[in-house]
């Protein structure tokens, strides 16, 4: 389904991003993933793949919130592939703290990184997507915190709410260019991000979830793949919550 498709996944060496990359590779896509720090995670990921998939996975190290890096990155993608079918804006950071204790620098770091990476990557990707007559897809990965807000995460929630706004804005802007823009909103998912969470807190969220469990990264990835498969041809500018029915 995705053979001959060129796909960028930001933050694709861990967690949800990694699962998205692996699912696309299984279906024959060429995937470029951008990561900022962990070389060993990238290396391990590649080693764990079958040989035919290894040839289709490309890594770029850098920060997607840095404009110069992004410009250079897209120049290289254009030179190498001359097209882009799908962009998954998954990269994001969190630095949780109580609002009154939060340092200005912590606020700025989280808000700037998460908003700039989603918006600027999409804007530059759209230039490449517009070159092709095929439909293209941008999926932003937000968070349930961006929908409901969360105490102790004002900066992260604010940035993830903004990412939903990025989707709303770009879905309208890019509609003439056959670019579909949607957002996936994961609930509590089994990633490194929840490792520091107290067990009672996790149990509390599970109790408030219809499916009575946390989600797996593959479950989010499969929704992302569905939205970009072409089967959802009348869906743009929408949020799909993949949260097991949290607070329903």
């Amino acid at each position, binding site marked *: 389904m995705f053979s001959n498709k060129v796909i960028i996944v930001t933050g694709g060496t861990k967690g949800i991003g990694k699962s998205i990359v692996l699912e696309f590779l299984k279906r024959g896509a060429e995937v470029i993933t951008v990561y900022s720090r962990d070389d060993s995670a990238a290396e391990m990921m590649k080693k764990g793949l079958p040989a035919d998939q290894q040839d289709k996975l490309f890594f770029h190290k850098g920060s997607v919130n840095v404009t110069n890096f992004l410009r250079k990155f897209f120049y290289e993608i254009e030179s190498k592939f001359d097209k882009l079918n799908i962009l998954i804006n998954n990269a994001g950071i969190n630095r949780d703290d109580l609002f009154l204790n939060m340092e200005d620098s912590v606020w700025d770091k989280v808000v700037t990184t998460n908003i700039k990476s989603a918006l600027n990557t999409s804007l530059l990707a759209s230039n490449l997507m517009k070159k092709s007559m095929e439909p293209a897809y941008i999926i932003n990965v937000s968070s349930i915190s961006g929908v409901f*807000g969360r105490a*102790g995460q*004002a900066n992260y929630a604010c940035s993830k709410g903004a990412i939903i706004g990025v989707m709303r804005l770009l879905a309208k802007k890019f509609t003439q260019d056959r670019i579909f823009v949607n957002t996936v909103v994961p609930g509590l998912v089994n990633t490194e991000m929840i490792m520091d969470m107290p067990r009672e807190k996790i149990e509390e969220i599970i109790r408030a979830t219809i499916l009575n469990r946390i989600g797996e990264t593959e479950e989010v990835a499969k929704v992302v793949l569905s939205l970009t498969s072409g089967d959802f041809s009348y869906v743009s500018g929408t949020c799909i919550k993949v949260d097991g029915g949290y607070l329903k």
Partner: protein
Amino acid sequence: MNLIGVVNPKNVVGEALLKSFSDLPGAEAFAMTVNSFDIEDFEDLIRTKLKEDNIFIFNSKFTDELKEVDINYADRVCAELGDLFRAIKKLTNLLLREGKKGKFIFITTNPSISHSSSFPISPIYDGAVHSLVRSLAKEFKSTQLIFHGVCIEPVCEMINESELRDYQRRMKVYAMRKRPIRLEALADFIKNVALTNLGLSSGSIFYIGEGLDQLNF
């Protein structure tokens, strides 16, 4: 006795709010800009003004709409959100220290109707503010501080005659005989949100309009 600070009052909505609150007996309404919060003696200045109930209305200043592929746009949104964060932090700190009640109201614009008028919108900024309101309501739940959003539509006074006709035609999809509301009605609504005890619904975003989908997912 109320103290009402209207932050960023320099548009028709802000001016109407200031006027509306100025007429309120026993209240003191004053204009602030986000830059006010950078002034060194800001805290001393506002401490002298604090009353039992203190209301701060953050009028949406951010009407900078993304037109084309503008790589600097995100920087402008983030800078605006940074200023907002610093302003709220200063005020919440001050109110808690002084043991006063505080209500924060953030005005944003409903993106659902953006195709129906030329009124500039920024769903990115507004989406961020809505999530912030919900987060702060949860975080300050056990204090005397409450947070609301009011998501507005363009009012009559913001649009010209031809835009008005166009707006009415397009808005038929939402409601019969849809008309933009009057500025005075909007100011009254916000005044009611400000002056009514809505502590039990802290974190709510109030949407102006008939049956517009609130979260629009």
